[in-house]
């Protein structure tokens, strides 16, 4: 399985979107999310906050950090947009940069759909964020193709 999960958390560590491509029960999910967020605060967020306090440029501060974290036997690839973190759990075999591009595509798609994407939008439209991945494989990489069924759906409502 290529992609195992897509999780979105905000700066406070609250989950805003969680999509799993393998069955995990509630406890497993909770444990997984907590673990990742913790891992994050260890190696990703902490220096970020520190740098902010240090009065350094915030914009590129985070980009000093590498976007891949080893987690259990897999990898987590993440990317930050404003106050949101997109985390994608993938197999070790998966191409990290490819997944980074995928996250970017996901965000761009949302951006186009919602106009100007923000936390709230995504929370309200859970079901629309899942047109791109199936069975853990990315099935669509064109924004237009992803959005057309969603737009149709909206019209139908």
């Amino acid at each position, binding site marked *: 399985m290529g992609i195992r999960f897509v999780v979105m958390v905000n700066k406070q560590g609250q989950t805003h979107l969680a999509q799993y491509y393998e069955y995990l029960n509630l406890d497993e999910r909770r444990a997984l999310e907590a673990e990742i967020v913790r891992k994050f605060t260890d190696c990703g967020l902490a220096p970020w906050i520190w740098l902010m306090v240090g009065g350094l440029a915030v914009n590129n501060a985070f980009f000093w950090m590498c976007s891949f974290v080893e987690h259990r036997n897999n990898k987590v690839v993440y990317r930050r947009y404003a106050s949101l973190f997109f985390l994608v759990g993938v197999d070790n075999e998966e191409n990290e940069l490819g997944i980074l591009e995928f996250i970017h595509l996901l965000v761009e798609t949302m951006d186009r759909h919602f106009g100007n994407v923000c936390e709230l939008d995504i*929370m309200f439209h859970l079901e629309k964020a899942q047109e791109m991945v199936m*069975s853990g494989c990315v099935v669509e990489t064109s924004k237009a193709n992803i959005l057309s069924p969603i737009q149709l759906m909206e019209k139908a409502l």
Partner: protein
Amino acid sequence: MAVVPSLMDSLFQRSIDDVIKGLRLCPPGTESIFISKSLDEIRREIKSTDPQTKATALHKLTYLHSLHSADMSWAAFHSVELSSSSAHSYKRVAFLSASLSFNPSTTQVILLLTHQLRKDLSSANPHDVGLALSTLSAICNPDLARDLTPDVFALLASGKPFVRKKAIAAVLRVFEQCPDAVRVCFKRVVENLESDDIGTLSAVVGLFCELTEKEPRSYLPLAPEFYKILVDCRNNWVLIKVIKIFAKLAPLEPRLGKRVVEPICDHMARTGAKSLAFECVRMIVTSLSEYDSAVKLAVAKLREFLLEDDPNLKYLGLQGLTIVSKTNMWAVLENKELVVKALSDVDVNIKVEALRLVMCMVSEDNVMEISRILISQALKSDPEFCNEILGHILLTCSRNFYEVVFDFDWYVSFLGEVARIPHCQKGKEIENQLVDIGMRVKDARVQLVHIARELVIDPALLGNPFIHGVLGAAAWVSGEYIELSRNPFEITEALLQPRTSLLTPSVRAVYIQSAFKVLTFCLSLYLKLSVDTVASQPLSDTELDNGNVVVASSSKHRFTKESFVNLVNLVETNLGPLAGSNEVEVRERANNVLGLIKLIKLIVFGSEGDNVKGGVEASEMVKLIFDAFSEDLGPVSVNAQERVPIPDGLVLKENLGDLDDICGDTEFSLPSSFSIVKLQKMDATGTSDCTSKEESETLTESTSLLAEHRKRHGLYYLSSENAGTVSNDYPPAIEPKDKDADEAEDLARLTEESLVIKKKPNQARIRPVVVKLDDGEGFNVSAKKREVKGGDLISGAVQEVLLGNEATATSSSSRKRESSKKSRERNKQQGHGKERKSQSTGKDKEHDGQGQREKPKRKSRQRGDGALPAQSPVIPDFLL
């Protein structure tokens, strides 16, 4: 109009937006109250007959489930119910909740969905179909897969790419759950490899990427199709996946590697996308490492990555280098400065990766230099990374019996230094290595004793619990190799200093035991001295075994009766209180020492007075004890236990179910009568007679209990006459043969070195011998052969289909193939043009057609799975 409560519900129902907003407005800490209140409402609303109300309720529940971990297994049936709604939006909510919350193996109601899914799969509305497919892929179980295979099969050839790509993605799960589906669907999946639609292609390539992961061999026959995509496709995502597939296939078929190396290098050179470039690099370094020119290009690319500012690229560059290092070490050495620079990066991941690489570079020539750099790096780093570095150094240096360590004096001092680093948590490892080196490397012992003394003597170190283990090892070394020490008195004082009370009992026991050894040693020196002076008669048997004569004689000349008596008194006053300690180990060892002191007093004072005979007896005893200690302790092979023959009549695998009640009634006798191995030797030489009275009492008591126990449950004991022979069967600790081999190796190494420029003068010295045991200890792990899972069910079925396909192809269209061979050769010369493509497309279609027509006949599995591994899959002519 519906019934009133329902109307009320639908009118005043809170929408999902309301719930989310409400939740956000909640004061912190009260969310759970809000959630449970909402859940109560949902429980009420979801029973409504109005689909709008029901859908909203379900939607809210799904939200609470996936983001706030609310349980929704109870609502499974409502999802099923709502899924039969004709409105797409309700259906969507229902299927969404199903795919998020159903557990494929336990949710009962999944079977109720079968019919609805089938209906939607054949629906005219493509969005219904897509929805059903994605639901299927999320909740697929064997029953569902089996029942819906025909429907999915039909969709694989759907005219709408939107549906087709989803069907392909869903079929992966269907295959996983129901391998028989492969026989039905596989051909259509393969056909899609020729698709023009990029979405479909991406899905099908992704599917094969997943499948090849498990058992690549089965997919070799598809290599031509993949090759075509590799050459023709321009979509990066698809290319990445295809390259992944080739990375799995190329090692299986050498001709394939030769074929793909060129296009892959092309892609790497041409593409602007870093992801694709990295995939090419990874492919080359993992699967095409024998193509030197390609590897050179890949390494150049990696260097580009390392020089980038982007941490991601830097990280991946390092990771790539790690892979290359296994086959082409030069690549790492070439980029040495960059790697070392990365050690001081901000990012932990990059640092760790760089550290691994640095460790790859370690050899006997540079180990000292690298360790020095790393230690200075460790001192600058945060505690976590500091320990990471230390762990890596310790691991690398000890690898394969200290292979890279040439100068053990340096290494031993280095260990002492590392132990003192403030954040060091590698005490356990250092402890093991100190003892191990002591036992294995005779030439290192002098320095080892010196380092151990420095550790033991420093009262400040006792306050740091992290290094108690190291101190234990140091104490052991001081005691075991006391004859190499300059000043035994000082060591004794150090071992008994008041702050040792801070140690854990087990370490303290080692301290006391070491004091025991030191005392025995001093006593033997004293005896020798007195005999020398009084009778001037050489006593060769108390001569030191491997005695470092210089040290012994140097300590002898300030050895007087007075100083010895002082020493004995010192030990007695310090250990006296411990004879009543609560800790078993501590008490036992203290008592041993006190027993020895009683003996000593007999010798020292008794010989002057009346009790001459007792004194002589006692000195005999002391001699025995000293002899026991002066024997070298060698390393023990991990496999030593296995070599002990199992005595006849001992049944090891018998059911031990009744062990519980055996242990139940005799538990109290277990703890006090065991001691650590080293002590046993001494027990054997007869300490039991000379220990204090109460102890011998407990000993006899426990022996009688043991005897009773043996009588009752003789079954679980080794027979006593065997015990003697068994202990003789242990392998001699030091194998002379190995020593020779090692020396020969060293010589070879030396001659090698003489050819190289000599940087360090001390390398002219012969490396100390490291004792190794014959049958590779530590090789257990690598010896364990990894069980290769004999082709799983999916690939079995795939092979059946593909080889069947190939067989029909060769039999039925061999004529056509021959006729077209010429033209194909011509095409080859022209490169991979369109002609070739169209031609092979035609050919494949024909094969597939035939395959399909013939399929019903081949339903029975004539090609038994047993024959499969032996077959080498046929790879079509483009490789030849």
